[in-house]
Each structure stands twice: as C-alpha cells, then as structure tokens.
C-alpha cells in the first residue's frame, strides 16, 4: 500500500462524496472502480481515515451515518452557513417530536400504542409528515382487530440526525417499575389517608404550606 495510491484514492473518494451530495457506502465507493482496479474494503476504510484527517481544521468534516459516509459542514459554522438560506430551519411541534420519539424508541409501534402513552390522539397530519419525510415507514400490521400499521424509523431518519444506528440515540430515562411504584404508594398512602381524613373535616385548611395559591381560587368561576 504505497502512499501515492492512498492519496489518489483519497482524492477520488472526496470527489465522489462531493459529487454525490449524499452519503455513500463503502460498497458504492468500491463500485466506482474497474474490476481490476478496485481497492479492497480494508484499504478503503484506511482511506476514509485519511479523508477524515484531511478535514481537520477545515469547514467540513467526514461523517459516518447509517447509509454511509458524507462530507458535511461542521456544526461550528452553521451560524454563518444558515444565512445562505432564506428559510429558517424547520421547527417541529412537540406532538411530532413525541410521536417520532415513541416510534424511534419503541418500534415497531402502532398509532394506538403511541396514543396510549401520550394520552391523546395522534393526528393523521403528523403521521403523514413523518412518512413523507421518510423518517418512518410501515413495517407491518399488528395481528389484532383492525390490523393497525406498525411504524419503524428509517435509515433516512438516522442520516438526518447524524446517527449510524439507533443505539446512538440518547438513552431513555429510567422508570421505576410498577412493583416499586406499588410499594412506594403503599407506604405513602398510609400517611395520606390519615391526612385526607383530616382534610375532610377541615377543608379550608387543605393544602400544604408551600402552595399559597390557595386563596385565590374563587376568582376562577
């Protein structure tokens, strides 16, 4: 593996990534070469390391995402670069992000299951938006009455968020399991029952000292 060959391959890879303007997999990069001139996968992996190193201190970087490698503008320069675009980057509603989060962490998941956790109906608009952005897709139907569609995230979702796999999503916060909750409640209940009994007899004194909003209640009705 001589240096000149590696530099040559590096330039070809850079050229291809910039020409494509989207991620290219190692397979796709190998396809650029003639049969008798095709670099081995391992060599190409070494070349990618070189490409990455050559981006050091530049305005762009090599990023590995789910569908391959791409050259992208570094986050540090987003401030200036975003001025190029008249439109502000799209903001997504909480409803959409929560739905997306549930699909990402709980896939495959049906709309009904999402609604159960969120406690509200999921609008068709949101599902359509996610499907149109190709962030989610239907991966099957649950074998229950109505055969609802099950949704999962796509490679495009991972690409969009700079991820190579779902493992890279931030971990979900811990939840104490139901048994724990039950025990805790049991304990707390004892006190509360006693307390709420006293409340019954003296409703005006209700509430804990830390909620001074008590008195203003009548202004509501």
């Amino acid at each position, binding site marked *: 593996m001589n240096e000149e060959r590696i530099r040559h391959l590096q330039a070809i890879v850079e050229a291809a990534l910039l*020409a494509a*303007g*989207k991620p290219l997999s190692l397979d796709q990069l190998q396809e650029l070469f003639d*049969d008798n001139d095709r670099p081995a996968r391992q060599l190409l992996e070494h070349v990618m390391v070189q490409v990455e190193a050559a981006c050091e201190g530049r305005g762009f970087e090599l*990023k590995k995402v789910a569908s391959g490698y791409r*050259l*992208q*503008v570094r*986050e540090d320069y*987003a401030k200036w670069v*975003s001025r190029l675009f008249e439109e502000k*980057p799209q903001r997504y*509603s*909480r*409803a*959409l*992000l*929560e739905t*997306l*989060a*549930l699909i*990402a*962490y709980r896939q495959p998941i049906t709309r009904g299951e999402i609604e159960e*956790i*969120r*406690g*509200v109906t*999921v*609008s068709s*608009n949101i599902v359509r938006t996610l499907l149109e952005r190709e962030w989610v897709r239907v991966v099957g139907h649950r074998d229950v009455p109505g055969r609802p569609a099950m949704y999962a995230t796509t490679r495009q979702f991972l690409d*969009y*968020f*700079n*991820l190579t796999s779902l493992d890279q*999503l*931030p971990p*979900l*916060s811990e*939840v*104490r399991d*139901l048994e724990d*909750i*039950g025990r805790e*409640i049991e304990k707390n*209940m004892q006190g*509360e*029952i006693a307390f*709420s*009994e006293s*409340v019954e007899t003296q409703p005006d004194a*209700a509430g*804990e000292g*830390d*909620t001074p*909003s008590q008195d*203003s*209640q009548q*202004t*509501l*009705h």
Partner: protein
Amino acid sequence: MMEDAASNPTIDAPEDDAPAGVGPLAMVSGKPLVEVPKDLYIPPDALAVFLEAFEGPLDLLLYLIRRQNMDILDIDVSEITRQYMDYIGAIEAMRFELAAEYLVMAATLAEIKSRMLLPRQESEDDEEHDPRAELIRRLQQYERFKKAAEDIDEMPRLDRDNFVGSAALPKMPASQPHPDVDLREMLLALQGVLKRADLFTSHHVEKEKLSTRERMSSILQALSGDRFVSFESLFTPEEGRLGVVVTFLATLELVKEQLIEVVQSDVFAPIHIRSRAAD
C-alpha cells in the same frame, strides 16, 4: 385539536414544563403571557391558548405536579385533582371545545381521590388495578418520552446544524456503461450456435488449435498495408520451437484460406508474403 402540528402561528407553545422560566408561555393579543398566574386566574382568551400549550392531560398533570415541586411518586392527589378540575371547569364554562381525553382524566382523578377516602380493604385488588399506581405509571412513561422528544430536538440535525457538502461536477465523460460478461455465458452462447450450425461434425474445426487462429490474426495485422514482408520476420526466436511451429501453421492456414500470398523470386531467394487484400 391538541395535536395539530400546524398550530396557530401566533402561539408559541412552551418547550418545557417550566414555562415560568425562559420566554413567554404564550402570546395573548400580542402581549406575552410569561407565566400562568399563581392565582389560577386566566384571562378568557388566554385559556384556550393555555390549554393548547399542553400535549394532553398527562402533560397538563405533569405541569401541575412540577409546579408544586412534587415527586411523581408522591403526588398529593387531592390537591392536583382540585387544580386540574379547576382548569377543566373554567374551560368548560368558557364553552371551549375540550378534548375527550381531558374529561377521562378528570374521571380517573376523581376515582382515585374517592378511593383514597375509603378505608383500605383487606383483599385489595392487585396493584395493577390500583388506579393511582396506573396513573403514576402512565405519567412516568409519558415523561420519559417527553424528555426523549426534547433530546431528539436537541440532537444536531441536517439543514439546521449540519449541511451536506456538495460541489459542482466537472465535464463528465459521456460513456455508456459496459455490461459485465461471464466467460461461461459466452461459451454457453457458443454452444447454442454450434448446435444450430452443427459445427461439431466439422473435423476442420476440431483439430485446429486456437493459438493458430490467434497467430493468423496477428500475422494479418502485421501485414496491413500493401507491402511485402519477409517470411523470417514473422518468427520470433524467443518464442521457442513451439512458437515457430504455431507461426508456420498459421501461415499455411492463411495461404490455404487465400488470405496471403507468398512470393519467391528465385530458388533459395528470400520468401516474401503480403496480404492479398491489402489496401
């Protein structure tokens, strides 16, 4: 309703459950509503906006719980229920359309509250049917994904934090891609054509070595142009005896097929050959 992604553009929904923190909770008639008033009085036109800031009853409950600095596991059901009912009552009084989920939650809270007032039974249902445990489970579960949604929103993403790099293309060769061919594919084709032509009966073909045909081609190539070439120059001594034989056989075959003519001006004079079809 609560869910519509494209909500009223003048309303900036709070991104977290502590609206008293950064930025206004909502814009009401152009004025920022910085914080839900402590006294729970909400101007009528703010009420709908206030409700729209929440992603449903679980979200509203979480907000109320957090506002009281309570732990989810330690909810003061009476207090939370009262506050929740106040909001719902106010909104109903304003005749705003209210999502059914909010009413279902109101019923659940009322049930929990009434249960807690009853003396505990010996043979209590298992915890799964304890409505309070169930509510806490749902609140916890919802909060996890609410947090996950915030995390996702924070993650660097394309078109906001990163932009895919692309460069203009140079002049490209207008080349047609060549199909790949497997040698066996070609041989199979040959087999077919031979069957059709019944070439197998041709002894002529059978005994000829392919190297002879190959050499015939290269001799013809060397004879391009209307000129005589000396017979000896066709031979390459480095090829050894076998090469000489192949060249000789190829020459004979070329003569036989009348592709070349051989000229000798005199006995023992140098032999010259040229293509018969030289142009």
